[in-house]
């Protein structure tokens, strides 16, 4: 136990751990006094009850609650620990460097090192997300309004790429359901389509023949409304790096990574299953659902195992077994009850 090296969480440490260690005692000057400790709690409660309650409470408690150390690269975006079941994985978080330099974002190149190299040109302000289709309240939402639409939460999700690698990433955002409830879908809206930015001026690979641009994705309404489906604005306690889909993206942790559309500009509510970018490119390889499933192989490789990026042991670390729905079966399994997952891959 070394208090000085944990300046961000002295209160928690002192309150819960004093006396745990019989050899190193905290200096009495480092122990937070009871009044201060309790006073802080009261202040938190007070703030939570106020007008901007949730947001302020999250802000005030950010240091005590934030799970992840900030890389100090971009503007901070604190989020309170999420209470959504399954939202806080206890697994070792992937290094920020790996999560921000090894990913797919084809608008910036097909190599996984390309996005970090090329996404500097992306302009994330001003930014609007247009909500259209079968909703009672369509309209254009500015990114600033979207950021404030609901309290930001930190959620630590496993991310499983269809290519067979995985990470654990602390995202910051809120359930997409919060936005959906606000815009009030009509009764016949059964699917949600996500359209992402396709700007050839700032995205050098838009126009390449790899995919049909813009990149689009889709979810069934119940999937979109599931509390684990995250509208993310940040990661690692900061706003999203451009290469990870700034300023706003989707994160659907039980589906392969490509389902989580980046840099979203349009959310459309529709009646029929929307076409999706990878499904259009190779329908036999990438289905609409694309739920993580170790029992349904990709035509060219097995999905039974995955390589966890940054796993201890590096090069020689063994691949780990992939779990059905990426380990979120308890939370999302019932969405697919009775469905043939081999057919609806």
């Amino acid at each position: 136990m070394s208090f000085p090296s944990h300046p961000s969480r002295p209160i928690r440490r002192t309150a819960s751990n004093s006396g745990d260690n019989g050899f190193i005692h905290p200096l009495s000057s480092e122990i937070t006094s009871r009044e201060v400790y309790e006073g802080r709690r009261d202040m938190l409660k007070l703030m939570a009850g106020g007008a901007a309650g949730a947001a302020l409470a999250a802000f005030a408690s950010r240091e005590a609650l934030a799970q992840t150390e900030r890389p100090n690269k971009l503007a901070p975006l604190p989020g309170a620990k999420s209470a959504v079941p399954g939202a806080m994985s206890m697994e070792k978080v992937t290094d920020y460097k790996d999560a921000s330099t090894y990913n797919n974002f084809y608008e910036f190149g097909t190599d996984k090192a390309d996005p970090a190299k090329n996404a500097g040109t992306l302009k994330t302000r001003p930014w609007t997300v247009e909500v259209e289709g079968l909703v009672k309240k369509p309209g254009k939402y500015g990114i600033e309004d979207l950021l404030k639409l609901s309290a930001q939460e930190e959620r630590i999700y496993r991310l499983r790429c269809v290519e067979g690698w995985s990470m654990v990433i602390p995202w910051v955002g809120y359930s997409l359901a919060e936005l959906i409830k606000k815009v009030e879908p009509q009764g016949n809206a059964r699917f949600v389509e996500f359209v992402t930015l396709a700007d050839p001026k700032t995205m050098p690979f838009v126009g390449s023949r790899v995919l049909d641009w813009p990149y689009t994705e889709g979810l069934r309404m119940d999937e979109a409304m599931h509390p684990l489906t995250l509208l993310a604005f940040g990661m690692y306690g900061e706003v999203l790096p451009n290469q990870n889909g700034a300023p706003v993206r989707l994160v659907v942790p039980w589906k392969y990574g490509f389902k989580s559309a980046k840099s979203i500009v349009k959310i459309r509510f529709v009646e029929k299953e929307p076409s999706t970018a990878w499904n259009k490119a190779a329908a036999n390889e990438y289905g609409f659902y694309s739920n993580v499933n170790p029992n349904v192989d990709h035509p060219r490789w097995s999905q039974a195992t995955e390589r966890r990026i940054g796993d201890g042991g590096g090069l020689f670390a063994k691949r780990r077994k992939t779990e059905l729905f990426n380990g979120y079966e308890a939370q999302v399994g019932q969405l697919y009850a009775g469905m043939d997952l081999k057919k609806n891959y």
Partner: protein
Amino acid sequence: MNKLLMHPATKPVVFLLCLLPFARLAYGAFTDGLGANPAEFLIRATGDWTLRFICIVLAVTPLRVMSKWNALARYRRMLGLFAYFYVVLHLLCYSWFDMGFEWGDIAKDIAKRPFILVGFSAFVLLTPLAATSFNRAIKAMGAKRWQMLHKLVYLIAGLGLLHFFWMRAGKNNFAEVFVYAAIIAVLLAWRVWNYFANKRGKVKPASAGAVRTG
């Protein structure tokens, strides 16, 4: 140029140059310099270098005939063996880092996934070529039969390309595949053209002396 190619120091220098990619990969592997997914990096890089050496070795004869640098023929065997060196590393990296040397899983993987099967077949076919690359094997087999066997390299190049194409197919990412395909197509097309040109007696035979000089 012929003089340079015949210089006793040239061959060792080329040998070391051919080892550079390996040295860079080994250095990166030990210094954590291969990015977030070092296993994938090694598997792909060794595959790339196999394909590159196949292109290089297929370029020897056209270059020799067109440039009249006949001493180039001295390098063909070594370059071919380097193609085999890198394909062995490729297979080793796959078996080790992707499959953890689980032989049962590897066998299943090869049977189940066409793109692995194609790559593995190319490796298997390349093995007798590497195994018969010393002078005594040529003598024992007879130059004609040896040459016939080594024509397999054309099939191997095609299989290697198909393996690479299939690997990239799911992502519709063919730019690099087309570069290799174009290079190999030109090198093979030159042989067809040369064959017919020889038949018409316009050009001196390209393969004369190739076997003797290795």
